[in-house]
């Protein structure tokens, strides 16, 4: 018989090794940037990443839960673009930005929930349904308005003047960073301390076992994709705070950055394992990649997607390696 303590230690090791690697990589990247470029090694860099990547991070909160549930949501980029142009158009029509954001959040949740329902009822792979959603929702944005639209509203100037915390060293926390951190904390609470959160982990571990234990798999799947749609829509609102505009053609390929952030943060693509603390580190790393490429200047912007893709692959490979090692060790122990 195996010793239960070693098993616990082993599984914690498996759980935390990728996260520790991620933190180490973030630190190395930050030190590398600070040594190489002037003005890099300051708190402002970090706060700029959190502010510039707030909408990525908010979308990543929903994506984390979708991936933990054993699925994936490829429609996040389109959803951010669609809700951003929806909000901009509604504000131009005279609606208050908060009311416009509420409508966008409802639309995002409804679209996400619909995709979840299709995934569950027809037992289709989530990547097919959300890939179709990715194209359909992008087109929906163009249906709202074919060009980008700037937002002029006193609410937006008010937020940048009054809803920004200024810290020392040029660092600042604008409203969109606060929304990101609030979404992250709420996501953690949902994942850790609610029945819904436990169900998400359960169906990601094994949908069949979860069903046998009495988990309502359908409601959980629909809920998780509705939540992901909600988060992407909130990301779209954060995007309008960032750019002061809505743009139906914006953030093509965002899904890769979001998935990379989640996976780098230690969430397993096979579902059932992961958490939101890691996603924060993942978002910072993905942001650091782009910041370093920006500071480098001579590098083509295309490098961002290549570097992000490679890092994603490296981490998936690491997870795979750990999983094989763990199952081998478990087999040895049984013998």
């Amino acid at each position, binding site marked *: 018989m195996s010793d239960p303590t070693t098993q616990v230690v082993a599984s914690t090791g498996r759980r935390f090794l990728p996260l520790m690697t991620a933190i180490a990589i973030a630190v190395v990247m930050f030190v590398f940037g600070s040594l190489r470029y002037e003005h890099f090694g300051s708190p402002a860099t970090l706060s700029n990443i959190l502010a510039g990547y707030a909408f990525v991070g908010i979308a990543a909160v929903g994506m984390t839960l979708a991936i933990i549930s054993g699925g*994936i949501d*490829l429609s996040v980029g389109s959803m951010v673009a669609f809700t951003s142009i929806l909000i901009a158009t509604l504000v131009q029509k005279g609606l208050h930005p908060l009311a416009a954001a509420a409508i966008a959040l409802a639309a995002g949740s409804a679209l996400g929930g619909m995709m979840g329902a*299709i995934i569950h*009822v*027809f*037992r*289709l*792979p989530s*990547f*097919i*349904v959300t*890939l*179709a*959603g990715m*194209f*359909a929702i*992008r*087109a*929906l944005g*163009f*249906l709202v308005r*074919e060009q980008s639209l700037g937002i002029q509203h006193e609410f937006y100037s008010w937020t940048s003047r009054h809803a920004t915390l200024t810290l020392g060293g040029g660092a600042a926390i604008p409203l969109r960073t606060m929304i990101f951190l609030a979404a992250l904390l709420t996501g953690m609470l949902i994942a850790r301390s609610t029945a819904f959160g436990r169900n998400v982990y359960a169906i990601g571990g094994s949908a069949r076992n979860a069903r046998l234990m009495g988990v309502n798999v359908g409601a959980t799947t629909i809920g998780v994709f509705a939540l992901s749609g909600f988060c992407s829509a909130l990301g779209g609102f954060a995007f309008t705070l960032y750019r002061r505009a809505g743009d*139906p053609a914006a953030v093509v*390929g965002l*899904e*890769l950055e979001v*998935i990379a952030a989640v996976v780098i943060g230690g969430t397993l*693509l*096979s579902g059932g394992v992961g958490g939101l603390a890691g996603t924060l580190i993942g978002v910072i790393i993905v942001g650091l990649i782009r910041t370093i490429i920006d500071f480098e200047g001579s590098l*083509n*912007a*295309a*490098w*961002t*997607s*290549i570097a*992000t*893709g*490679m890092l*994603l*692959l490296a981490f*998936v*490979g690491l997870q*795979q390696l750990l999983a094989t090692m763990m199952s081998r060790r478990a087999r040895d122990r049984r013998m």
Partner: protein
Amino acid sequence: MDKKASLASRIGPALLPLCGIVLLIIINIIGDLLRDPSPGIFGPGAFLHIEWRAGVGLIGAVIDILNHSSKIIILALGMSIVIATRGIDLSVGSIMAVAGAIAATLTVSGMPALAAIGIALAASIACGVWNGALVAGLRLQPFVATLVLMVAGRGIAQMITDGQVVTFQDPLLAYLGNGRPAWLPLPMPLLIALALLAMTALVTRRTAIGMLIEVVGDNPRAARLSGVRAGTIIAGAYAFSGLCAGVAGLIAASNIKAADPHHAGLMLELSAIFAVVVGGGSLSGGRFSLLGAALGGVLMQTLTATMYARNVSAEVAPLPVAMIILLVCIAGSPAAREWWRSRRRGVPV
């Protein structure tokens, strides 16, 4: 008897896309007649009007659709094989952009077109082998493995062209997408697609390869245990899909005499998946129908052409198209199949 049954199983999957194509053609004819009844059904300007023009060959809306569907047909051939192994290849659109970028940049820099085409196709196969290595070697989920190249591939294409749209004048490269051979009155892309279809069908159905592909997709474990080299088959499937994407990418660049790293092949991965599913392929692997997939590709292009003919803008057209794709996937899903089966037997659901 056995031969008849296998013939039926080959043609059966082609019926659904065929019905779809006929339906769309009828919609187009009625739409055109409502707008302007003067040309009739086959007269000049009508949807079904086909004309022989000396020195060019056959021209008409139907020929145009067949011509433009050739890229989707070619992608669908590779996608059929990949999906049959229980995989998916999301990177085909990006590989198209890479192939076009390589061929255009090299010919502009003075390389002979044949060499440039060879290098572009070799690079496409290399992209496919990379996907295959990740799926078969590292055992990554196919959609994750190919998602990386789907996004990063466009970055690679942008790096090759330095972010620009590269236009070229090379006659041979332009011939691929716009030419018509003197001895056959049809557009070159369609001929390439038909040749690839025939070759793929020959190789998969006249040898054991097709069966091995289906065995690997149907039950990978059983296939491995019975001595099938599943890894090699899977890697080969992705390499073939890469090659198909490369050919389609060359045609796409040739069509507009330019390589556009941002837009070449955009959304075509979804179109190819649609073509495969509507043509009788199952997303859970284990079977494929090349004829069905090819007709699925024609159906997809007919659908897009119908959108444009009804004045839906290019940006908005993906909305109805994606909805229809989703509906077809739903109709082909295991849940829907079970429902149909139980209905036919009269068993309450």
